[in-house]
């Protein structure tokens, strides 16, 4: 009953957003902002096209490698700084201040090192994702209640048993939260890299459509990316909530 009501309320908000879109379209004209319906029609035509598939695949491949790097390096730094107190205390403020920097400004450095290549875009994506993964993993390990480790010692668990049966389950929910934020930011990094300098990928398609004043294509790509990010986030949030509930 309440779930249905809540879904209905959310639907009303989607309708209000669509109406606002239509109103803005009336205000600024069709070249600047196409109406929702023509965009939807274009959506149906554009999604099956080879051009979309090609660029979406390029973005996906780049994103996959960047995510792999973010997670591997982020978890590595997080576990190290979580277990080694002194490194954590020294490094945490440095990581936090790098986290709040606008990393776009550093993209030219990446370009100067890697050139306009896949590895440059992958590196830039990973630069965005590494920090939240590292910071949340470190926090998760530091926040393990000492009584857990004491009971592990009382039970005479070996080091590996302690890691597998105590440390891993205790830190998992928070680590997954880090992986979720890392996912979103890595995607942002990859798209920014494609928007700034690339000849392929969905970020490039958006900028290209803007230069050609193709409003429908610009909005279609934006909505596809929006939906992808929102769905992935919802899935990871769902996993996170389940982990929090289970003992």
């Amino acid at each position, binding site marked *: 009953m309440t779930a249905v009501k809540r879904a209905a309320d959310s639907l009303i908000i989607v309708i209000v957003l669509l109406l606002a879109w239509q109103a803005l379209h009336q205000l600024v004209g069709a070249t600047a902002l196409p109406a929702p319906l023509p965009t939807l029609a274009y959506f149906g035509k554009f999604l099956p096209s080879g051009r979309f598939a090609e660029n979406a695949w390029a973005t996906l491949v780049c994103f996959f490698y960047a995510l792999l790097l973010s997670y591997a390096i982020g978890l590595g730094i997080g576990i190290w700084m979580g277990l080694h107190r002194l490194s954590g205390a020294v490094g945490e403020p440095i990581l936090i201040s790098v986290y709040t920097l606008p990393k776009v400004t550093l993209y030219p450095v990446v370009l100067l090192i890697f050139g306009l290549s896949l590895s440059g875009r992958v590196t830039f994506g990973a630069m965005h994702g590494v920090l939240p993964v590292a910071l949340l993993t470190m926090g998760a390990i530091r926040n393990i209640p000492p009584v857990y480790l004491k009971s592990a010692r009382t039970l005479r668990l070996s080091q590996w048993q302690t890691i597998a049966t105590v440390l891993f389950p205790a830190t998992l929910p928070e680590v997954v939260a880090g992986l979720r934020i890392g996912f979103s930011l890595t995607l942002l990094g990859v798209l*920014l890299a494609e928007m700034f300098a690339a000849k392929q990928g969905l970020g490039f398609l958006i900028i290209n459509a803007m230069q050609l004043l193709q409003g429908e294509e610009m909005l279609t790509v934006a909505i596809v990316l929006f939906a992808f990010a929102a769905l992935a986030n919802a899935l990871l949030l769902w996993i996170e909530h389940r982990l929090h509930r289970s003992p």
Partner: protein
Amino acid sequence: MGMTRVGWIRIAVLTIAIGLLELCCRVGFIDRRVLIPPSEMADALVQLLISGQFNDQIVRTFAIVIVAVLISVVLGFALGALIHALPRVRHALDPFFATYYAVPIFIFYPVLIVIFGLSAMPIVLMGVATAIVAMIIATLNGLDRIPRVLTKVARVHHMGTIATALLLKLPAAAPHLFTGVKLAVSYAFIGVIASEFILAPSGLGRVISDAYSDFNNRRMYALMLLLIIVATVVNMLLHVFDQRWAERRGIGKS
């Protein structure tokens, strides 16, 4: 209080890192076309600021950031208070708030450029778009955590609605509101710089991106250094302010 041991180690680590970078550049281990020595970056920045060549661009960018922060904080607080007063709207909006920062909203920047043209307007709007939702969420959190007992106190003392809001509710919600302001500042900064960088008629991000295209590494690294210094100093000041405030509240409580 003085510096702690950890603080000294941190400074040593950073100094050694910068020193190594300097050495690698000087020895030629790192190509000048890729990275210039940190000392040269600092030197280039000082000369650039003295020459005043880009002062108007620098002022322009920081002015846009300040405008975006002001709009986000004021409007975000007002919207947060409004949404807090309407529980049903709030429940409907919850999933949107949970998703907002997971979505790369920069993909809508080109849409704004097409609508408003290549001017300061889309950049201000991107700054607001990245910052305002953090302020709304912080306002909702702050208003949620106002103790019920304060409403009773107000009733006992026959205080009016405005007096209750200003004298009791606002101070109780203040720490959360400040968290919102802190996030709004750093998000607006990122939003504005990133927009200028991708596409803008002028501004600091644009100058850096032009310097990159012109292979002008001295200029590029000087302005990058400026951005990094400003961002770090502003974030540190907000952090220190936050900490002081928390300490004082802690003392007040005991």
